[in-house]
């Protein structure tokens, strides 16, 4: 089995009750910086392994 991959990251929270707000700040710095950040996010998630999933989802 492969290590798997992160497909997308939606940053922040959307307080706007009228549309889906997406953070485009990364367009300023480009794919290189995101490529550097993504492994850190992956490591944070793997660090908390065995995350519980609601019974309804199983």
């Amino acid at each position, binding site marked *: 089995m492969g290590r798997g991959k992160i*497909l997308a990251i939606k940053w922040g*929270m959307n307080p*706007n*009750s009228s*549309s889906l707000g997406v953070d485009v700040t990364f367009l300023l710095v480009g794919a290189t910086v*995101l490529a550097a950040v993504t492994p850190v*996010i992956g490591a944070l998630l793997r660090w908390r392994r065995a995350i519980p999933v609601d019974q309804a989802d199983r």
Partner: protein
Amino acid sequence: MSVVTSLGRLAARGVEGALAVAVRVWRARQHPPRRARLERFGAILQLTVPRALVFVDRAFARRVLAVDRPAIWAGPETALGDAPLSAPLEAHLQLTNRCDAGCQGCYTGASPEGAPGEWGLAEWMRAIDQLADAGVFHVALGGGESTVLPWLGELAEHARRRGIVPNLTTSGLSNLDRLLAISGQFGQINVSLDGLGATYARVRGFDGFARADAAIRALRRAKREIGINVVVTRHNFDELDRLFAYAAQRRLSEVELLRFKPSGRGARAYAELRCSDAQHRAFLPAVLAAARRHAVRVKVDCSYTPMLAHHRPDRALLAELAVYGCTGGDFLIGAKPGGQLTACSFAGPAPAAPGGERPRVTELLRYWAAPGAFGAFRSWRDAREPCASCDYHSLCRGGCRVVSAHTVGDATAPDPECPRVVDAAARIHVPVVR
């Protein structure tokens, strides 16, 4: 400014940031937010620090989740976007249509009396329960002006208890003390600010800038996660840089830019307030330049995706940032003050399922997978030209359905304000919206 002063400010911001992170972690321990949800492509995982929803494939999900062979993975692994999610990421709850402001472009046509048949706390708590059962991560609470509701804090607390993070938009024009008392309940609060000084009055139709500014300053003293929502119109477009400067000066966490929609009173004011084609084409460079100059985080709403795609940014990067066009009835849903379920806040009530009535948000689980659910909002895959051949179509999804419905009279038509659509129409000499 001296080096010592600059370093002092930097240190102060660092301490403040660390404190905010500590508060966020403490709150997450009190009421842990939903941390994961399985999807056919894998799973969506939620991080509290930094705040993010992370979409991962099945192999990654197996490494971090306590699951073996869940039913939702029985079929072949799909790609993100191949099918609607198993539930929305967020729900936009228009808790009331009461508001005294009377803005000329209000997307809900809010009034001091509100809408007939508005729900109360008990009904909205049941809605939160349904959303939690469905697996929703966040709710965005708004109106009207939802701070007029004495039970707003109770509802936010209930959402927290059910693992949903409540976020809030407010005009900041009234009930500030009530909001300050409950501001800690919310993940993010944004104040609507469509211009500075006289521009605010020009866009909204009344002079409310001083009150909105006072609310922003008071909220920012109480909480770090405060931003502004800016509805971009042809009147404030040239002021965007100044709005970013304002956000930097007030040390706000973000500027969220919203395209003006022909909805509510906004339908009547649309021709006067909507941005021009030239402004749409200039949008992305102008916004990124302002964000860079003032070092402020920028978010844009889903309907701006055609204007981003016009500049042909790295498609893979957009996908990794989850930059999508219309995701109504998929990533997000809305609910009207009487609980009527909608694909997004600007859309009318969702069509009835076969043999049923128009659904309420408390019936989301039953309606979500019904044939024809959310009508035109889920038909974007059957695109016509020039969307069908566009490299960005699977992300953009044809632009804003509400703009198409208003301007062309067909919610399934390509967004008539997309630069690519404008250019295509010009080539075949069709009158277009400029």
